[in-house]
């Protein structure tokens, strides 16, 4: 009885080590943002998170994040998702020589969800912009090895 319990517990722990949560949660995203801001609450504004509302394919969604005001005041821009397996996407570090506080990249989206872009300013303030996106699936995918 005891041995079986132990085995079951061991198997459970092994599963945890291998598997990731199927998706992050809004709480995890909030926690990750909190880590980025060192506890400060970002205010909505100044940040523009430019992404299509309807995504052709979740493997590559082009995004552009820009921040209003003088570029030399923007220290960093971070992107978070609510429902990807992992909530952090990227943190971009700018410099006083950036000239324009704007970054573009392509990101993966596991499913339709909410995304957040958070900017860290040189005066210690944080600003954010949240967007909701719908992700479509591609039709006719590989059914067998290529």
């Amino acid at each position, binding site marked *: 009885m005891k041995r079986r319990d132990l085995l079951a517990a061991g198997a459970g722990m092994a599963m945890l080590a291998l598997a990731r949560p199927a998706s992050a949660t809004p709480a995890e995203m909030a926690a990750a943002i909190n880590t980025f801001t060192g506890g400060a609450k970002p205010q909505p504004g100044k940040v523009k998170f430019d992404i*299509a509302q*309807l*995504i*052709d394919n979740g493997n*590559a*969604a082009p995004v552009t994040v820009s921040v209003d005001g003088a570029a030399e005041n923007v220290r960093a821009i971070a992107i978070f998702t609510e429902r990807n397996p992992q909530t952090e996407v990227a943190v971009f570090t700018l410099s006083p020589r950036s000239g324009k506080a704007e970054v573009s990249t392509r990101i993966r989206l596991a499913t339709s969800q909410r995304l957040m872009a958070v900017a860290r300013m040189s005066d210690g303030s944080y600003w954010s912009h949240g967007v909701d996106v719908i992700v479509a699936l591609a*039709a006719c*995918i*590989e059914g067998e090895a290529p």
Partner: protein
Amino acid sequence: MKRLLLGCLLIAGVVQAADERRSGAEFMSPATQAMQRDDAQNPAMLWTAAGEAQWNAVAGSSAKSCASCHGDARTSMRGVAARYPALDAGSGQVVNLGQRINICRERKQQAAPWKLESEELLGMEAYVAMQSRGMPVTPPQDAATQAAAARGKQQYFQRIGQLNLSCAQCHDQQWGKRLAGSTIPQAHASAYPTYRLEWQGMGSLQRRLRNCMSGVRAEVPHFGAKELVELEAWLALRDQGMKMETPGVRP
């Protein structure tokens, strides 16, 4: 003579009347369109750059590069991809561009052919086909190529697979409508090889055709199969006059 003239006019009329053909690019989101349009953003450019490097690299026991015989691809390869699939006189077979590149490697460079759908072959194919970008698809008029296209056309209208669907049913009759959240395009093939977001990489037209066949739960021919080349030949005829877009980006 009068009947022939009338016939010609009719055909001309049908072609002119309303060219409803629209590239697959028109069915994608503006963001994906921008990815294809902007060479600085287009992921396929990584493959064309590799292809360009291969073009200038010596290969095989010939110690020749493509450039040794063909010089600058921008000149020598201009319009070439727009004329494929085509008949290869040497083997008497209708071949696609990738197969033709391999024929050159074997015969002229004495180099081992690249594996079909390999990164090297896709890169070279994309680089060569890019030299026809913007040019009209111009399928050859010889009997062998036209015969291959005729067989391909039969396949296009043939129901296949457990879902018992033909290409025509989705792509001629239902284009513009939705399939699993995606808009059904018209199945024009002039952007291949293409960076497909779903593959997270580059692929040939044959790879995409195999995806479709797999999608309707049909048996999937192996890469390089004659029936796939014939289908490619038909698609080139069907695309006649449309602009080459290689290297394309598709969802």
